[in-house]
């Protein structure tokens, strides 16, 4: 059954704060092979004009994926996650995510389309500090493959 169009425009309560740690940034940077000292050395980061070490550009997925889980798991929407693949992803950074940030995210359903029996769900996570400074917008396209698709 196609996803309910009335979910377009819906937003969810902000997530609890995620505290960005220096060691988590380092761990993520290691995992993507990012060798920049700006991910590891607070002195180098300060010399480059940042208050502390900064995260790689796609680190925001940790927060956006967690925020979007309220949409994906919403029983009223009824998305079958075992059929979902990640179709597209965009991050817009107003500034880099920085160690010490306490970030909350609000998940939005921006669009739902059904084509050829597949559902295309555009989800957006607006990531801000607890004090309301907007840091990152993460937009993802989730594709739920139709049940009739034979393989």
């Amino acid at each position: 059954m196609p996803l309910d169009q009335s979910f377009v425009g819906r937003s969810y309560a902000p997530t609890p704060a995620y505290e960005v740690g220096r060691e988590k940034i380092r761990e993520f940077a290691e995992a993507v092979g990012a060798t920049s000292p700006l991910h590891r050395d607070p002195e180098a980061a300060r010399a480059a004009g940042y208050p502390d070490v900064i995260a790689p550009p796609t680190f925001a997925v940790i927060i956006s994926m967690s925020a979007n889980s309220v949409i994906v798991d919403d029983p009223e929407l009824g998305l079958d996650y075992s059929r979902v693949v990640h179709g597209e992803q965009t991050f817009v950074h107003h500034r880099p995510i920085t160690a010490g940030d306490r970030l909350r995210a609000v998940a939005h359903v921006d669009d739902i389309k059904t084509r050829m029996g597949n559902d295309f769900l555009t989800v957006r996570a607006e990531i801000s500090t607890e004090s309301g400074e907007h840091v990152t917008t993460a937009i993802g396209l989730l594709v739920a493959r139709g049940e009739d698709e034979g393989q």
Partner: protein
Amino acid sequence: MTRLTAAQVAKGDELPATQVHVTRADLVRYAGASGDFNPIHWNQRFAEQVGLPGVIAHGMLTMALANRFVADWVGDPGAIVECGTKFTRPVPVPDDEQGALLEISGKVTDLSEDGTAKITVTVAFEGKSVLGRPVALVKLG
């Protein structure tokens, strides 16, 4: 670390191409760091059950590698103000020491007056692009 300045960059510039090996161990490390434990990225049996050729790399890892490539060129990962891609082709990662070999290249496809460069990246596996139109917008110094 110094960020490239607009004076050092011209539209049409090619970024120095690179190659990255992605192994099963890299997928496990990325799963742990990102929290994405979907078994298609580490469990051969599960991946085959859902019709994949085998364990595949996280699309988000491939996207991260594309952005690391841009960050290395510009000299400051914080210069990337926007990045986006489509995930068009899975990257199967064999269970061996070499893993999958990704070839990454890029080009400055636009340079605006405010000093923002648009970098169009190509990530290829076995000669075919695996990301659709991966783009990074970079604020030059």
